[in-house]
């Protein structure tokens, strides 16, 4: 599986890619990835390309990604160069996250939303999360089901 995670500094791009990688490793799959962080720290583009269960390197060719996880909608044109299956959070998703959990747990809530909406992974794959994060992750999963 070839994934690209795309967004800006501070949006949790690195967090998302690491959680996904850890879940894949727990399942016994190989993971390789590559990170490109723009020069400016705040607001700069962060791009992670990742291969799960295949390949020697993390780089994904243009047009070849099975899915692009897009955290910053203004990068949509750039995201499309990797493939046309784009996943992004809706405004409702983000509102739900902000109103259901504390600021620090927003990312794990959204991770739950992602897992439920895409079914690339199962909720059990993320059993390595610590207690607080697990709670908000499950809240994210439940939000999608409801």
């Amino acid at each position, binding site marked *: 599986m070839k994934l690209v995670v795309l967004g800006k500094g501070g949006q949790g791009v690195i967090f998302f890619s690491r959680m996904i990688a850890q879940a894949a490793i727990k399942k016994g799959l190989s*993971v390789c*990835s*590559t990170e490109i962080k723009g020069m400016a720290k*705040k607001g700069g*583009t962060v791009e992670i390309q990742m291969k799960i269960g295949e390949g020697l*390197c993390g*780089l994904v060719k*243009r047009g070849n990604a099975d899915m692009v996880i897009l955290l910053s909608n203004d990068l949509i044109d750039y995201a499309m160069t990797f493939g046309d299956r784009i996943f992004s959070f809706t405004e409702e998703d983000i509102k739900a996250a902000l109103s259901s959990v504390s600021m620090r747990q927003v990312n794990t809530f959204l991770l739950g939303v992602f897992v439920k909406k895409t079914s690339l992974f199962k909720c059990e794959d993320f059993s390595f999360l610590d207690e607080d994060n697990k709670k908000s992750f499950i809240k994210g999963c439940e939000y999608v089901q409801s």
Partner: protein
Amino acid sequence: MPRLYLSGNEAIAYGLIQAGVRLITGYPGTPSSEIIPAAQKIVKEREITSFIDWAINEKVAYEIAHSVSLAGIKSAVTMKQVGLNVAMDPFMNSAYIGTEGGMVVVSVDDPGPHSSQTEQDSRFFAMAAKIPVFDISNVREAYEFARKAISLSQEYKIPVMLRSSTRVSHGRADVEIDEQFSIETLHPHFKTLKDWDKKLFRYASTPKGRLSLHKELNEKIEKIRLTNRPSFFFSGDMLILSSGAVFSYIYELIEEHGLENRVTLAKIDMPYPLGNLEVSSFKRVITIEETYPVIELQLNTEGRRNGIVPSEGELTPDVCEKIFVKLNLIEPKKTIHVPPLKRPSLCPGCGHRIGLFAVKKVFGKKAIYAGDIGCYTLALNFGVTDTILCMGASISFGFGFKKAYQLAGKDQDVVSIIGDSTFFHTGIQPLLDAVHYKIPFLTVILDNKTVAMTGNQKTLSDNVSSSGESVTPIEIESVIKGLGLEFLKVLDPYDYTESVRVLKKARTFIREKSLPAVVIFRHLCVNTKEGISSNPKYSVLLKKALCKGCKLCILEFECPAIHFNEKENSVEIDYTLCIGCGCCVHVCPTKAFTMDKIEEKKE
């Protein structure tokens, strides 16, 4: 063995420590900066006695690591590719002198370039110095090659280069790590060596002795050359030779396009020194490597020199596919247009922005602004940087530009702009010359007490080192005072009115006394915890009615939190980015920005 999701740089750190390296030093530089912090963590968790910390520049780092090796302790030095240029003198010489304890030189290249001044190939420099070089092709290999490099160095008593690249160092993969770390006591020996007399001839060698050391070096390289064998994959009558990150891309492409019967792929772990390779059975032999023709020149194959491989730019999998088209291995694909990404800017509230805005206000657009390497390079976006060469060059350029106009008897304001860590790295030396020769120009030192550009490493101004040791803090002004400079002022650039006043005084001083002046702008980097928590915080508002839409605050100041709304012909503040620093208040000619203090500055 545990499987960890490591970056290439972390994997290198694990490999080095596991191979017994007990001193690692270097200077931060993207993409090499994470090796030292990773190694610090590894030794701390395992209570391994060691010294792992930053040096003032790559030359000093190299010399420290080399002398430790000569005392019989395994060592390593880390840097980015352009850092190797700074360390070139000891690098070349250490090949002749050799090593005692294994010594590895980690140099990380940046094909692209993503965050560097050049696309230079460290393997080329290794070849020039006659130093063997391992070229890492993926994260798992980073761990393995770090250990191999130490053992090769130990065996042949020669420094060994470990070459990585952005894609490997900033890549990640699951890596199996051996949890066995030897915790042996260290036994340095130098003058206590039995055959000291013979050794002295090597360690303090005169030119005559160097000739025989050169001969010895050639013999070592010849021996290593004979053991250096590539590994082969697939079985076609076209041979592609590769090393480093590109090897992984080519391997994947051959599988993806089912070319296993048309191409043989040779993987070269050590691109220098290369052994003879029997290639007469192949119809064509092509080298695809980043970024200079190192293997290609040694084996005289096709590649860059006959235009098959592009001579500049990163050889990404997409580019490698185009090379395959040129080799008639696959049909051309539709090219995908990649839209450009937004250019980077200084962070909202960065002290460099308002400080340099004041400099521009006083010295005007006609002054020559000699810039340097650091975040403040981005002042290029709003017209306060005219040159960027290499670390420390701002001050030598200030000297040179001023001199050029002086020789012609013409007036010209010249301002050099340099950060605190860059000043210590290689900015001090040109300032010595400027003072000595009485060159009248202004040097602005932007002191944010951190190496911000590469991930906020500590500078000499701290009293605790990054590994937690107590250290002696060194203030820039005390160093400069020692030079006998007459005009030296330290101030916080957030105090805009005072900045303008001091800069005007500096300008008058330089013109009237015809001497150099230094202004230090001190403000913590707001991208650090300490910096943001101690930063003044205001409630900043934009009065739309007062905004004339002149775009001055966009073009001449460029805070990412200020957006221009074309429809309304006025600006608006993006409060998700704004940190309430209040600096923009000084910028708008019609006073459209207002501020109210909302929180007392915490001490």
